[in-house]
């Protein structure tokens, strides 16, 4: 790692930040969340805390801009330079700028968060089927109002879950119209416009009037990026037109022909040769979280590292399960020291109302909405259970299969196969629990819920909790580092699995029965002896390893091996 000359650093640990503007590519809540998570990368390993300001001057001012954006270092269009940030100090020092000619995502393509509809703002599920046809983008099919929509589950016909996709016909952002939708046509400087335009602006952002006459009403907003819009080019974000003609040849998909840089592009009219209208095709985009975490490293005083795997290496590469490299940790701790004492409160955006995805079982539909400003921990709606390769634990609670992963959980009703719900926040429903749950089970008679994490366990009865207590108190040996599965066997007896062994717990006595541990493979033949989840569901016992499960019937025969993703989550 390297630090800037003179070891530039903040002289206080309570660093403030402010988000000046937003990108049209991502819903503002996703941007807020990406930045909050990027700061948490650094606050997890240092005594630093990050507080968001909504006005005034913050230590770290964050903005999106294109090309010449008000500092001496212009951006360069799509790809190439993604962002830059200044080392700590007064004025522009400490600020972070992101190139809005990039396509900002969470690293794996467009993240389309819906509005309205009946899916509570869930993300689009691509592909989805509607009337026998598969869709990989939002569509206006089936509607007469031209509003793009998507299904939020794989099959609209089965689940009937949908929402509307970002479009200028639904809302705008920024500007002075409080998010009102565009009105087309609108008049600007005597000219009539039928679509969003960059005319009249030097920053390249697409805008529209939200009344029929901008010259008279002066009401405007910026247009959100549709998932089908082109990026850059000269078409103001119009969608590709297929087929199109380029140099006399017809193209049915995006092409890199004609370009020396290999980037995929398309025409936005039927003939490029005649109209010269074009744009780049949407791609995987760049993870705003990863780029922000890197830039905030600069804003805290770290220069570029020459270790390829380090976050502070200058090149972008997407990693699915990000964790901070030892080199980055050493660098930031050289400047600010280690984190000491109990966990400080992690950076959390403040917002009015409750989390975007309250657990419906925990809320009363007759409750009045809470309009007081509360600080709540947001659930990242972009976390997709279908993309989780290995859950921390899977268990049945109140008849529903629960999938736990890194502070979140999803649930699936076993009664109606009613689809997956979530993500929900573990801390909101069971505040005493840590983010990672190794194992859990519910006593069907007492309704007590047992949660295991590492060498500790908690018992929830309704909203009251006992614990954490050490698993040694149950009689498990100190060599057991975690309980990986739990199976109820008869009245008050529970089998606890760890490694290649299992123990039988007498729940009433809160003690392990004599004669244990036993080898798992001796009693449960044919299942992996390193399963990390063991649970019972619909009369079968499931042993999971990574993305697979081994299902055992009541005669202890393995009768099926399958994918968690497809068979249990119904992805």
């Amino acid at each position, binding site marked *: 790692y390297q630090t800037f000359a003179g070891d530039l650093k903040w002289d206080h640990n309570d660093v403030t930040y402010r988000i000046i503007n937003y990108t049209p590519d991502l819903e503002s809540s996703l941007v807020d969340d990406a930045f909050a998570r990027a700061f948490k990368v650094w606050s997890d390993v240092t005594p630093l805390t990050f507080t968001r300001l909504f006005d005034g001057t913050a230590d770290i001012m964050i903005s999106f801009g294109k090309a010449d954006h008000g500092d001496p270092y212009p951006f360069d269009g799509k790809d190439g330079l993604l962002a830059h940030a200044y080392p700590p100090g007064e004025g522009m020092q400490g600020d972070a700028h992101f190139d809005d000619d990039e396509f900002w995502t969470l690293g794996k393509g467009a993240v389309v968060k819906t509005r309205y509809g009946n899916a509570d703002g869930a993300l689009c599920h691509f592909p989805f089927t509607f009337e026998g046809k598969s869709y990989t983008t939002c569509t206006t099919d089936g509607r007469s109002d031209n509003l793009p929509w998507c299904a939020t589950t794989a099959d609209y016909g089965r689940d009937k879950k949908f929402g509307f996709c970002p479009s200028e016909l639904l809302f705008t952002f920024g500007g002075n119209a409080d998010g009102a939708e565009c009105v087309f046509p609108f008049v600007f400087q005597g000219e009539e416009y039928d679509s969003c335009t960059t005319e009249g602006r030097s920053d390249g952002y697409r805008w529209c009037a939200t009344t029929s006459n901008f010259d008279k009403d002066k009401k405007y907003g910026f247009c959100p990026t549709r998932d089908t819009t082109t990026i850059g080019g000269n078409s103001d974000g119009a969608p590709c037109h297929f087929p199109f003609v380029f140099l006399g040849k017809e193209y049915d998909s995006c092409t890199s022909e004609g370009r020396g840089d290999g980037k995929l592009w398309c025409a936005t009219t039927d003939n490029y040769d005649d109209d010269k209208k074009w744009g780049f095709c949407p791609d995987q985009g760049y993870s705003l979280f990863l780029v922000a975490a890197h830039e905030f490293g600069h804003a805290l005083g770290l*220069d570029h590292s020459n270790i390829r795997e380090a976050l502070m290496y200058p090149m972008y590469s997407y990693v699915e399960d990000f964790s901070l490299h030892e080199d980055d940790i050493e660098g930031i701790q050289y400047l600010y020291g280690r984190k000491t004492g109990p966990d400080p409160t992690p950076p959390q955006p403040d917002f009015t109302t409750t989390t975007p995805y309250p657990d419906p079982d925990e809320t009363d539909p007759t409750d009045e909405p809470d309009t007081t400003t509360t600080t709540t921990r947001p659930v990242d709606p972009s976390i997709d259970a279908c993309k989780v390769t290995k859950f921390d634990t899977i268990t049945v609670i109140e008849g529903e299969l629960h999938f736990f992963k890194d502070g979140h959980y999803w649930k699936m009703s076993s009664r109606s196969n009613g689809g997956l719900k979530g993500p929900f926040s573990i801390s909101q429903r069971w505040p005493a629990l840590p983010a990672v749950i190794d194992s859990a089970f519910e006593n069907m008679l007492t309704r007590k819920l047992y949660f295991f994490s590492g060498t500790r366990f908690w018992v929830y009865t309704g909203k009251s909790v006992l614990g954490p207590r050490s698993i040694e108190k149950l009689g498990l040996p100190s060599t057991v580092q975690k309980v990986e599965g739990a199976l109820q066997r008869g009245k008050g007896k529970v089998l606890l699995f760890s490694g290649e062994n299992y123990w039988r717990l007498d729940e009433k006595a809160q003690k392990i029965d004599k004669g244990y541990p036993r080898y798992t493979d001796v009693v449960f033949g044919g299942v992996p002896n390193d399963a990390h989840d063991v649970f019972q569901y619909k009369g079968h016992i499931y042993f999971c390893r990574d993305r697979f499960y081994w299902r055992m019937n009541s005669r202890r025969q393995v009768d099926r091996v399958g994918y968690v993703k497809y068979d249990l989550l119904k992805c």
Partner: protein
Amino acid sequence: WSIPLKTRFVTFPGDILKNISDNELSENYLTKFGYMQKLHRSGFQSMVSTEKALKRMQRQMGLEETGKLDKSTLEVMKRPRCGVPDVAN
């Protein structure tokens, strides 16, 4: 059908990115990210040769230090990255 298409590069209107030669790209990259300058103890700044600058860049990026604009160096130069210079000014 086996005759390859003859690629023609065109200039796209409104495109910030221009078709530039590899050498131009390299010079721009080395200059922009601080590899061409050398700061002397006196505080005086001077330019270093392209070969030396390339070696500095290759060392920083964990590439073989050839001092030549080889394929792997060029590939790294074309990758998306942070705009903060690698060699502090």
